């Protein structure tokens, strides 16, 4: 029999705040965490990035772990610390009980650093033994530092890593395999990955106007802004959480995924994104009209926003002309009258404020969505001035909207065509 999965702890380290309260305030007021990084000048076309604070972990983490930490591991440590504390999963509890860990990450810059050392020194000893070259380095350290003794998996799925980590953690608990799992993701913010996106032409060139650079679904968007940090959620079996008196924040009730399966690894696919969302809603046992808010993937890239807008329109506005034309058997009884006023769900991309948090995005956006659900507001999709045609039937929130939110859908997609959708519900 399937188990119910609830969230009993949240942790966040991001460019819009490094605790739940500050993130809540910045989401509510539509403040951006995006800056111009002058260190990237004359090297990268785009010098824009999320301004993520460097954690001061020297007094918190033993040197043997600390020197193995990649940049994102330090963010991960801070986020997981918060989530465990929030959930009251004490050292004593973790030592007595198996707590799992499913962590999203798809690489860090130390591999490139190690290559540079080898090219110069031509002696493997000079690498030192603490080079954090593993993609799973943050997961390895989190397991050791926090004595997590259950499942131990790193999920690498590009910019959907964090979302899939939550989804798979949810599956483990739902299927009665584990009771408590820490799920989340982390992403470094140095220029290494920014270089990779820069060379693809995927980044915004609005260097002179950082706060308006990330503008998902806007006609004048010109690319994403690389960002990062870490986000963590404690997932727990419902009865288990009740029995130990945990603070139950929300329920994870749906997860859907799909892969584009097309030749172009960077091309998004409305069809595949639609399938992921539909599967998540089916898993949750709810209809599209029951969704109050969608946290869109909305990266502010040219192609990505168009395809996601098409998928969202097909799912949530099935009577729109574009949705009807995409269906093989359009329902002639569908009425266009409902399109005269936009209704539920409200939609926004918090990447308009955070930039694209890449590996971490699916986890952080789950945290942002749950914060909104707890406080009954929809964070604005800032910088949306002229909505793209493909999104014209969608109810994208341009300003903060105060409204009850009971059910949330959060979308994520990654390079190579991996799509994820998660459904959260108030409890």
């Amino acid at each position: 029999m399937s188990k119910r999965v609830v969230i009993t702890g949240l942790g966040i380290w991001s460019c819009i705040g490094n605790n739940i309260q500050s993130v809540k305030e910045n989401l509510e007021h539509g403040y951006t965490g995006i800056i111009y990084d002058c260190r990237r000048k004359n090297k990268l076309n785009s010098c824009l990035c999320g301004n993520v604070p460097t954690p001061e972990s020297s007094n918190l983490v033993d040197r043997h772990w600390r020197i193995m930490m990649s940049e994102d591991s330090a963010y991960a440590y801070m986020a997981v610390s918060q989530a465990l504390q929030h959930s009251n999963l004490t050292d004593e509890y973790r030592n007595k009980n198996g707590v799992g860990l499913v962590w999203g990450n798809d690489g860090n810059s130390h591999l490139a650093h190690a290559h540079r050392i080898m090219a110069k020194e031509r002696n493997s000893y000079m690498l030192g033994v603490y080079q954090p070259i593993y993609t799973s380095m943050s997961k390895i350290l989190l397991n050791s530092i926090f004595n997590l003794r259950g499942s131990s998996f790193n999920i690498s799925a590009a910019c959907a890593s964090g979302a899939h980590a939550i989804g798979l953690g949810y599956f483990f608990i739902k299927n009665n395999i584990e009771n408590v799992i820490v799920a989340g993701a982390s992403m470094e913010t140095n220029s290494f990955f920014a270089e990779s996106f820069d060379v693809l032409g995927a980044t915004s060139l609005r260097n002179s106007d950082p706060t308006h650079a990330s503008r998902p679904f806007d006609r004048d968007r010109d690319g994403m802004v690389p960002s990062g940090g870490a986000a963590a959620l404690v997932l727990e079996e419902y009865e288990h959480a009740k029995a130990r008196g945990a603070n139950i924040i929300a329920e994870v009730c749906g997860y859907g995924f799909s892969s584009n399966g097309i030749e172009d690894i960077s091309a998004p696919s409305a069809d595949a994104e639609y399938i992921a969302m539909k599967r998540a809603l089916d898993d949750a046992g709810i209809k599209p009209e029951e969704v109050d808010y969608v946290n869109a993937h909305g990266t502010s890239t040219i192609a990505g926003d168009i395809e996601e807008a098409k998928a969202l329109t097909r799912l949530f506005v099935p009577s729109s002309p574009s949705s009807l034309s995409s269906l093989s058997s359009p329902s002639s009884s569908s009425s266009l009258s409902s399109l005269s006023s936009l209704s539920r769900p409200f939609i926004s991309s918090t990447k308009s404020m955070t930039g694209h948090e890449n590996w971490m995005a699916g986890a952080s956006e789950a945290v942002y969505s749950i914060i909104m659900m707890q406080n009954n507001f929809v964070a604005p999709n800032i910088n949306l001035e002229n909505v793209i045609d493909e999104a014209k039937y969608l109810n994208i929130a341009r300003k903060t909207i105060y409204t009850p939110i009971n059910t949330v859908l959060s979308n994520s997609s990654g390079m190579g065509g991996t799509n994820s959708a998660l459904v959260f519900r108030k409890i």
Partner: protein
Amino acid sequence: MTKQEIIDKTNLFLVEEYEKQPEQLKPEARFREDLDLNSLDYMDLMVTVKRNFGIMPAPQEMNLVVTLGDFYDFIESKLNEPDTQTDEQQ
């Protein structure tokens, strides 16, 4: 390099890079038990030795070091080996 220079240089990197307290750095202090240096630290110390003294000890040589005093003596003997070439001499 004099023995005192070796001691000073070693103690400096143990404080600055390995975060040991100066009062811990007595010749009789044992690397593993007293200074909390594990097997990975031993490997890392080889790189530190190379950077500070210009010589690269073999792992099996490092494994014979038990106390800090042993380490000072080991560096001194390596530097005084007739066929040892440091980075500076190269």
